[in-house]
C-alpha cells in the first residue's frame, strides 16, 4: 500500500514531467543489462538499415548447383536449398521483421492503450460497449477475416501492419483497462479530480504513466508474437512475397529441415532471440526506471 505522503510526491513528480524522464534515464543508465540490450538493439537496427550496402550477396541470387551448404568462409551462415546466402537473407529478413515488429506493435499499443484507458477510466455504459466490442473481435475467425481484407483492399504492407495491429491490441486493451480501473480508485487520482483537472489531462498525466509497467512488459512480449504472426500471414498470401523473406518465414521454413539443415533454423532463430532478449532486458529496465515506488527501496 502506498502511503498518503508518497502519493503527494507522486503528484509533484508528474506535474513536472521532464524531471521524471530525466530521473528514469539516469536510473536506466545504472542498469547494465538494459544498456546491453539497448546497445544490441541499436547495433542490429543499424545492420538492418545498412543491409543494402553491406550485405555480402544479393538476397535473390541463386546458385542451384551449390544447393544447401553448412556455414563456410564464403557463406558465414551457410546457404539454403537454392544456394542463396543465408546471412544476406537474415539481414534482409531483419528489415522486414523489425519493421513489422515495431510498426505493428506501435499500432497495437496506440489503439490498445487508448481504448483500454478510456474504457477503464470512464466506466459505465461506455466501458461495457467498448469491452464487448473487444469480445466480438476476439471471437471472429481471424483467417477468414484476413483473406477477406486482402480481397477488398489488395495486398499491401500497410494492410499487413493493420491486420496484425487489429488482433494484437485486444489483450493490451484488457490489460490497460484493468490497471486503469485500479488506479482510478487511488487517492492521488481522486486528488487530481478534486483539483479540477480535465479527464484527458488526468488520463495522460496520471493514469497512463502509472499503468506503464505492465504495458511495457506486455509490449516486449508482443513484438516476437507479431514477428511470428507475420510468417502466418505470409502463408495466407498477405505480407511479403518470395524471394523476399523475413525472420518468421525463415524460421518456419527452417523448422521443416531442422534435422538436415540445422543452420537454416539456428541463424534466423538466433537473430530473433537476440532481439527478443534485448527488448526484454530493456523493457524490464525501463519498467524499473519508471516505477517510482520501486526506486524508493
Amino acid at each position, binding site marked *: 500500500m502506498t502511503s498518503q505522503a508518497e502519493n503527494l510526491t507522486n503528484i509533484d513528480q508528474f506535474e513536472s514531467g521532464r524531471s521524471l524522464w530525466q530521473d528514469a534515464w539516469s536510473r536506466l543508465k545504472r542498469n547494465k543489462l538494459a544498456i546491453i540490450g539497448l546497445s544490441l538493439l541499436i547495433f542490429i537496427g543499424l545492420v538492418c538499415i545498412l543491409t543494402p550496402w553491406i550485405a555480402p550477396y544479393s538476397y535473390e541470387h*541463386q546458385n542451384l548447383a551449390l544447393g544447401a551448404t553448412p556455414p563456410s568462409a564464403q557463406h558465414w551462415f551457410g546457404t539454403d536449398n537454392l544456394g542463396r546466402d543465408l546471412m544476406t537473407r537474415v539481414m534482409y529478413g531483419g528489415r522486414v521483421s523489425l519493421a513489422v515488429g515495431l510498426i505493428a506493435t506501435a499500432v497495437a499499443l496506440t489503439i490498445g492503450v487508448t481504448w483500454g484507458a478510456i474504457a477503464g477510466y470512464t466506466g459505465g455504459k461506455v466501458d461495457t460497449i467498448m469491452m464487448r466490442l473487444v469480445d466480438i473481435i476476439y471471437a471472429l475467425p481471424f483467417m477468414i477475416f484476413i*483473406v477477406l481484407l*486482402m480481397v477488398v483492399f489488395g495486398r499491401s504492407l500497410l494492410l499487413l501492419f493493420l491486420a496484425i495491429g487489429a488482433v494484437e491490441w485486444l489483450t493490451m486493451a484488457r490489460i490497460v483497462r484493468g490497471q486503469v480501473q485500479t488506479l482510478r480508485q487511488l487517492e492521488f487520482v481522486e486528488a487530481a479530480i478534486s483539483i479540477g483537472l480535465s479527464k484527458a489531462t488526468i488520463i495522460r498525466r496520471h493514469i497512463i504513466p502509472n499503468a506503464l509497467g505492465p504495458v511495457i512488459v506486455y509490449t516486449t512480449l508482443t513484438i516476437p508474437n507479431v514477428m511470428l504472426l507475420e510468417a502466418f500471414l505470409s*502463408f495466407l*498470401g498477405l505480407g511479403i*512475397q518470395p*524471394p523476399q523473406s523475413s525472420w518468421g518465414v525463415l524460421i518456419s521454413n527452417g523448422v*521443416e*529441415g531442422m534435422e538436415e539443415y540445422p543452420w537454416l533454423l539456428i541463424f534466423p532463430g538466433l537473430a530473433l532471440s537476440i532481439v527478443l532478449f534485448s527488448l526484454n532486458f530493456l523493457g524490464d529496465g525501463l519498467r524499473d526506471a519508471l516505477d517510482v515506488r520501486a526506486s524508493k527501496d
Partner: protein
Amino acid sequence: MHPPHLRAIELLRTLMRQTSPKQTLHRLLISTLALTSLTLMACSNGETRVESGNRDGIFHVENSAEPQSIDPHVSTGVPENNIILALFEGLVSKDPADLTPVPGIAERWEISEDGKTYLFYIRENARWSDGEPITAHDYVWSWSRSLNPQMANEYAYMLFPLKNAEPYATGKMDNFDEVGVHAISDRILKVELENPTDYFLQLLDHHSTYAVPKHTILKYGSKTDRFSNWTRPGNMVSSGPFRLKEWDIYKVLKVEKNPYYWDKDTVSLNEIHFYPIENFSTAERMFRVGQVHKTFEIPLNKVDVYRKENPETLRNEPYIGTYYYQFNVTKPPFDDVRVRRALSLAIDREAINHSVMFGVVEPAYTLTPPGASGYEPPKLISFDPEEARRLLAEAGYPNGEGFPEVELLYNTNESHRKIAVAVQQMWNENLNLNIQLLNQEWKVYLASRNNLDYDIARAGWIGDIVNPINFLDLGLSSNGNNRSGYNNPAYDELILKTIPESATKEERLANFAKAEEIILNEMPFVPIYTYKTKYLLDPSVKGLTPNFMDYYSYKHVTLGN
C-alpha cells in the same frame, strides 16, 4: 542396477525424509522433476506398431487427410479413393502391375463386334459384406443413383459413355430405362454405349461406377441422400475384400477382412488402419519410429537422407500426372504465342528436378506423361535460352525491354514456392524479365484461376484413367479445367470429332500426337515435370505392386519379414 522407476522412488523417499523448512520449495521442484522423469521412463515400451501389425496382420497406412465421404458416389479425393479401394470392388478390376482389366465382381464379359454392347457375367459367389448376393439389378440401381442429378455426383461423367447417360445426368431426360444399362437376369448385365470407347473397361474400376448396397442405403435414408448414415461403422455394407470396422473422425479409420468376399482366400491382411495426417513431417516421424507401414508422401528435405540410409524404404515410381504452368492467353503479353514459347524455352527443367525437387520427379517436355497406354508423345521443346531470347525480341521485347509487369501465381506450399523462385530466377537470367511471385491460399488461388484473374499460374493434373485423352482434354475450349482462356476451334475439332472417330489404334495414336503438337507449339500450358510417387514403405510390406496410377490392390498385400 536398479530399474529407473525404483531409483526415482528412492529419490522421492529421501526427499520426504528431509524436513528442513527452508528447502520446501526446492523439494517441491525436485520432486516434480523426479515424477516427470519417472513417467517418462515408464512410458518407453518395446514393440512398435509396425511390429505388432506384422504379427497380427494389421497394415498401418498414413492417408494424409480425413476422408470426406466414403460413399463411392459422393467421394472425390485421393485419400477417399485409397479407402474405397479396400472396401469396394468394381465390376472389372485392374491388374496391379500393368493396370490391364481383370475380372472383378464380373467373372467375364463379352463385347459386340461394333464395340458398343457389353455383356457382363456376375460371379455366382459375389456377396455384399452382410452375405446378401450382388446382382445385375444392383448395378442398374447403383448406376441410376450415380447418374441421378439429385445425387450431385462430381464424377458422374465416368458413366457418360453409356447410351443416354449424359442427357439423364444433366436432367434433359427423366426416364432411366432409356439409359444403356439393363439387367437381363440376376447375373447378366447388358451395357450399351453411345460410341465404341476403348477405355470403357477401365472406367468400371472407378468408384463412381461401383455398385452400392440398395438394401442398406434405403434402410438409412433415401436413394440420393448425401447426408445418409449408411456409411457409418455398423451400418455400412460393401463389396470389396474389406469392410468398415471403426471410424474415429480425424484419428483413424479401420477396415477388417470381409468374410463374404468372393476371393477371401487371397486376402492375407486382417485389418487396415488409415490415419489422416495432413502434416507430412509428422507422418515421416511416425514412419521413422515404426508407427506406420506406409506414408502418403515424404517431405522433400528427407529424400536425400532416406536415399542414403534406407533406400529400400523409398518408393519413387512414375505416376500419371503433369505439373505445369499455364498462361492467361486472353490478355497481353501472353496472347502472343512467341512470348509463351520464349518463357517455356527459358526454363531449365533438369535443374528444377535436381536442385529443387531432389530428383524425385521427371522433367516434362510434353503435356501427356510419356507411356500412357502405349502412347509416346512427341518431344518438341527443350531448354534453349538462345532461341527464347530470339522469340522474345521478335515479339517486341528485346532483352526483356518494355515487358509489362506480370505475376506468377501459386498456392501456398513449400515446393510450389521453391519452383516458382527458381523459375523466376531463370526468366531473369535468361530473358532479363522481372516477374513477381504471388502466393495465395488454396481456395483463393482456385477462384483466381477460375476467373482468369492471373497472368501465369501453377497447375497440376492427375489422370483419372490411363489414356492420353484425359490430358489432351485440358486444351478444349469447353473444358472447365482449361482455365487458360485457350480457344482453338481446330484443336476442339480434333479432340471432339477426329479422335473418337479414328478407325484404328494407330490412327488414334497419330491423332493424339497431332493434338500434343498443337499444344506444344501454341504453349498455353508449360509442362514443368511429370509426377512420380514419393512415399515411404516399410520393407515388411510385400505385394503392394508399384504402378502408373498409384493404384493399391490391398488383397495382394502381405506383411512379414
